């Protein structure tokens, strides 16, 4: 039995033939196991969907009640026999409900991590390394220049800026699922108690987080607030809205973007960002390499992102590694925002 007999890349996504399912398929399939609710991983139109309760809820919020023919919720750590294999879900620390999928078959365990981060996040369960024979890791930030640092320092930068420019609205671009809520929670932990304003596209997911008992303080919708109230306010919106018509009603906005990409200056400048905040829901280089070591896996498959550098790293550390050509992941959330450019605010 080899790992590729259990999981293998197909045009529809990562396929588990002995279990009869796909993980995060990009095309409609009969049976899908979904790692988390981001739209490049969780797509509508599958027959049966197996995921954590939170991921199922988030898919329902995004795609409506009939996003799949049938669903099955699985708790973290609870083994489930699917076809000839046994699967368990383990916290991935990426966003609320995110999971790694461990697949066991005839004594061999392979873990598909989905997207993950191994640092604390007040809005989701902490990442749990899983011992395995083969580990499939993401590599979004798979270059040693990506070190995210402490998010608290970035939040301090934002709050300092609000104090320095009390007449300017601070528009913070953040992915609507996960990042936005984590930011609010971090801002609250830094002692900021004023209302935080949200773009409409962030509302339903944020309310869902609150319904799961995550404290986010007083939130208001930006569209309901008079312009004057928004001077010196922190306003969260989808990343693209920062540069769109929607942003024009704000008083002399400071444009911020919370993302691991902000570590590289050119990335921030290309987007016209004035206040880059290096806060990511993906593991940074040190996180990726530490996690690979913690799994004890002798074989590593590297997918979506900067595969080359991480494969090279594994090879120089005595691990069998190869890039896994899976299409369709990674940049989706960049475009996954409300409001097509050109639409009136």
């Amino acid at each position, binding site marked *: 039995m080899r790992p590729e007999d259990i999981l293998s890349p197909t045009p529809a996504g990562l396929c588990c033939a002995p279990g009869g399912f796909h993980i995060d398929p990009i095309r409609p399939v009969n049976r899908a196991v979904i790692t988390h609710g981001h739209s490049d991983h969780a797509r509508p139109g599958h027959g049966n969907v197996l995921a954590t309760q939170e991921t199922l809820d988030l898919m329902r919020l995004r795609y409506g009640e009939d996003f799949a023919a049938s669903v099955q919720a699985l708790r973290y750590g609870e083994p489930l026999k699917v076809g000839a294999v046994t699967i368990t879900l383990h916290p991935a620390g990426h966003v609320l409900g995110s999971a790694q999928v461990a697949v066991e078959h005839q004594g061999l365990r392979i873990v598909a991590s989905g997207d993950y981060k191994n640092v604390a996040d007040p809005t989701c369960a902490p990442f749990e390394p899983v011992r395995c024979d083969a580990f499939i890791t993401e590599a979004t930030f798979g270059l040693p*220049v990506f070190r995210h*640092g402490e998010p608290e320092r970035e939040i301090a930068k934002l709050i300092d800026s609000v104090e320095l420019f009390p007449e300017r609205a601070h528009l913070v671009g953040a992915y609507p699922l996960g990042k936005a809520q984590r930011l609010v929670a971090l801002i609250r932990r830094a002692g900021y108690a004023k209302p935080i304003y949200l773009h409409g596209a962030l509302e339903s997911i944020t309310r869902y987080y609150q319904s799961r008992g995550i404290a986010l303080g007083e939130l208001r919708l930006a569209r309901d607030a008079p312009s004057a109230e928004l001077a010196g306010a922190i306003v969260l919106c989808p990343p693209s809205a920062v*540069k769109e*018509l929607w942003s024009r009603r704000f008083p002399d906005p400071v444009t911020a973007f919370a993302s691991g990409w902000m*570590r590289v200056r050119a990335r921030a400048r290309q987007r016209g960002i*004035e206040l*880059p905040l290096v806060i990511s829901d993906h593991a940074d280089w040190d996180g990726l390499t530490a996690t690979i070591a913690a799994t004890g896996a002798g074989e590593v498959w590297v997918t979506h992102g900067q595969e080359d*550098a991480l494969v090279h*790293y594994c090879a120089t550390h005595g691990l069998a590694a190869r890039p896994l050509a899976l299409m369709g992941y990674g940049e989706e959330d960049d475009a996954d925002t409300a409001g097509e450019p*050109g639409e009136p605010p």
Partner: protein
Amino acid sequence: MNRFATLLDRLAYEGGRNNKLKLMTEYFRSVGDPERGWALAALTGALRFQHAKPGIIRTLIAERTDPVLFALSYDYVGDLSETVALMWPARSGGLDKTREAPALSAVIATLSTLGKAELPAQLARWLDQLDETGRWALLKLVTGGLRIGVSARLAKTAAAALGDRDPQEIELLWPGLAPPYADLFAWLEGRAGRPMNRDPVPFRPAMLAHAIEAEELAALAPADFMAEWKWDGIRVQAAADRGAGGSGLARLYSRTGEDISKSFPDLVDALHFTGAIDGELLIERNGRVESFNVLQQRLNRKTVNGKLLTEFPAHLRAYDLLVEDATDLRERPFAERRARLADFVARLHEPRIGLSQLISFASWDELTAVRADPALAGIEPDTVEGVMLKRRDAPYLPGRPKGPWWKWKRDPFVVDAVLMYAQRGHGKRSSYYSDYTFGVWTRTQEGDVLVPVGKAYFGFTDQELIEIDRFVRRHTVERFGPVREVMHEANAGLVLEVAFEGLQRSTRHKSGLAMRFPRISRLRWDKPPAEADRLETLEKMLERIESTRSVEAAHPET
């Protein structure tokens, strides 16, 4: 160092002038001496460290990282200092919290005394003590060239705001000040008197002109004015103290008071006088003034080498005499200063310094004719921007007083072009499509097509910007990253009237032409794209420019 690094980091991303000022002023207010003074020195480009070369940094990082990972990272980031700052291996257990990050003043003091051999180890120690932003700032500082979009003038303006002073006051004092400027900050904060400028060759604030309109011109009496060419170079002030017993100093200032001597050592060496001349810096070859395009080739170089000095010799075309020997002439009327200037320049016998000739005219009509066709007066049209009118009785006043001096620019070249691509702007315009690529028609095997001939960022009003932006959003046919291709067909599209100052051949552009200073002068909603200009029109304009040039070259005396 950390506060300074945070300031640089924030300035590098901030696009708005006022916000940059606010960030810097806040820094100067909250950081004490001598740190803020060294920061001001760094921001104004007053610091140079001779031993710090990129090669040292490459060696340091090569000793610490896997070469494949470094190559992949550098390729991704695209900037050496930044790649090294980000990749620098973290000490086990994070930053050494027991040791303070080095202070900016300590870094500068050490750098200015350290030998070349000790530099790598010292840099490595500092890099170990700093975080990503600190490392980036340190590497930018030591290798020179912060490139964060802050001019020396802007940094001085931010310092001036500390004491509600006019930045011009700092400019006047600046040549006599030295980092870390404790006396300057003491004065700005009202703790001490104004620092004395003991500089024998200080900058004197320049006098500037207003643009004149036709109706304003009609109201003026020709006899009250003298006219001269407005040369298309860079306005400079040449100050020197070379007389017996003088300091032997000479400096060249930009019109805002920045010392640009280092860029033009050839001209500075030719300033053998005591006084101050207001003039235009031009490139002259074989007695012929070159166009601004030629001058620009010299301005774009980072280092001034011998070849550049020989190929692009800098000359001074003198407009005005502010100080003659030790006598300040600025209160005297222009006619008198001008007469003295003519004598002064004649006595110098310096081939690098020439007098800007006056244009004789009896009526505005006569002047209009010469202005429209400088070749009539033996001037290459490409070397002048228009004419200057100066009141005979006007003293030399700092700033831009209305009335004594007028600039009357030549009518720019104008073509009708079609909007082809649009890109979003920055800063205030960040959500608007405000950068426009436009084209004109040319014939190909597939029939008439539009070929891009230039890009314009301004010239339109805020209202027009909103209209163009709306047009772009509604007529996008394709997107390439931040760029939108806008519908541009014979019967559908937007015609822009584009004004520009000059044309030259270019191998970089598909059209083979490059415009100088293009801007949108009018929106032609009324005009169907099919009626926009053709490439042939531009080529004819270029030929006309070139033929005037060759006529002049054949008769250099005219």
